[in-house]
C-alpha cells in the first residue's frame, strides 16, 4: 500500500432512500381491506381445485395456478400455530417491544394469518386461542386489526 493511502482517514456518507411508495391493492385485496375497514370482517378465498381456503384473500392459488373467485368469511378467531416475542426495536415495527408476532390458523382456514399480539404475552403458546381486536377508526389496511389477543382459559 502506498504511503498516501495509509494517511487517509476513511470517511462515510450518511443518507437514506426515502422514495415514497403507493402499492395498489388490486381488486382482490381491495375487497379484503374494505371488508376489514367497513364491516370488521376477515375474508378469504377458496381455490376451486384444491378447495383450500386462503387468508388473506388472494386472486389465485399459487399451487394450482388457477384464479380463485369464491369468497369465504372467516371468524376473527383461531389457534396460534407459531409465535415469537420480539425484544428488539426498529422503526417499522407497529408496536413497542416486547410484542409478539403470531401465525394464527383462523377457524375454517387452511393457512395461517400473520399478525401481532400486544398484551398478555405471557399467555401465548402454540395451540392457544386468540381473537382479532379491530381498531375503532379504520383506514383500509392490515393494521385495521389492532392486534390479536388471547381468549378464554389458558
Amino acid at each position: 500500500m502506498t504511503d498516501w493511502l495509509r494517511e487517509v482517514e476513511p470517511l462515510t456518507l450518511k443518507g437514506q432512500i426515502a422514495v415514497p411508495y403507493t402499492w395498489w391493492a388490486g381488486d382482490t385485496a381491495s375487497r379484503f381491506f374494505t371488508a376489514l375497514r367497513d364491516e370488521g370482517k376477515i375474508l378469504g378465498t377458496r381455490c376451486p381445485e384444491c378447495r383450500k381456503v386462503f387468508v388473506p384473500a388472494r386472486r389465485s392459488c399459487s399451487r394450482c395456478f388457477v384464479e380463485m373467485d369464491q369468497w369465504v368469511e372467516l371468524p376473527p378467531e383461531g389457534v396460534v400455530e407459531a409465535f415469537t416475542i420480539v425484544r428488539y426495536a426498529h422503526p417499522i415495527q407497529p408496536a413497542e417491544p416486547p410484542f409478539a408476532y403470531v401465525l394464527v390458523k383462523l377457524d375454517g382456514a387452511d393457512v395461517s394469518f400473520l399478525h401481532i399480539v400486544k398484551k398478555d404475552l405471557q399467555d401465548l403458546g402454540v395451540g392457544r386461542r386468540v381473537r382479532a381486536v379491530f381498531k375503532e377508526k379504520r383506514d383500509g389496511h392490515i393494521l385495521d386489526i389492532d392486534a390479536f389477543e388471547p381468549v378464554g382459559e389458558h
Partner: protein
Amino acid sequence: MEKNGTPVERLEITFKHPMPYEWSIGRYGSRFFQEIREKRRFIGIRCDGCGSVYVPPRRVCGPCFRELTELVPLSDTGVLTAFSVVNYPFIDPATGELRPIPYTYGYIRLDGADNIFSHLINEKDWHKIKVGMRVRAVFKNPEEMEGNIQDIKYFDLLP
C-alpha cells in the same frame, strides 16, 4: 359468499419509511475530500497502463484492469462539456420531498482529467450557459465541510 361482482373501491397502501444507509467513501474518495478541505483543490488518479487520469480517484482502471496508485493534483478549473437546467418536478430520494427547482447541473472536464466530473452550475438561465465555457469550483469554508460532495458548493462560470 357470492363470486366477484362489481369492482370494489380500489385501495392503495402507502409506505413512507425511509431506508437509512451509511455508505463508505473508501480511501481513494476520502483522500479526494481531504485534499479539498486542506488544499482546496481536486485530485485525480493516473493509470500507468493507458495514462488516463480519472476523477474522482478510484482503485481500478476499467479498461486496463490495473490497480491505480499515482495521485495527480488537479486545479479547481475545467471546461463545461454538457449541462442541464433541471426544471421538472421530481421527488428527491434523499429527502422524500420535491427537489427545489430549477437547478443546473453540468458535466465538467477538470483540467488535467480524462473523464467527466458532474456537479452543480451556479447559473439557472440556460441562455447564459454554453458548452465549452470554463468553470471554477467554489468550495465551502473548511469549518463547514463535512467530507462529502457538498463540500463543493457549485461551479461558477468564468467570463
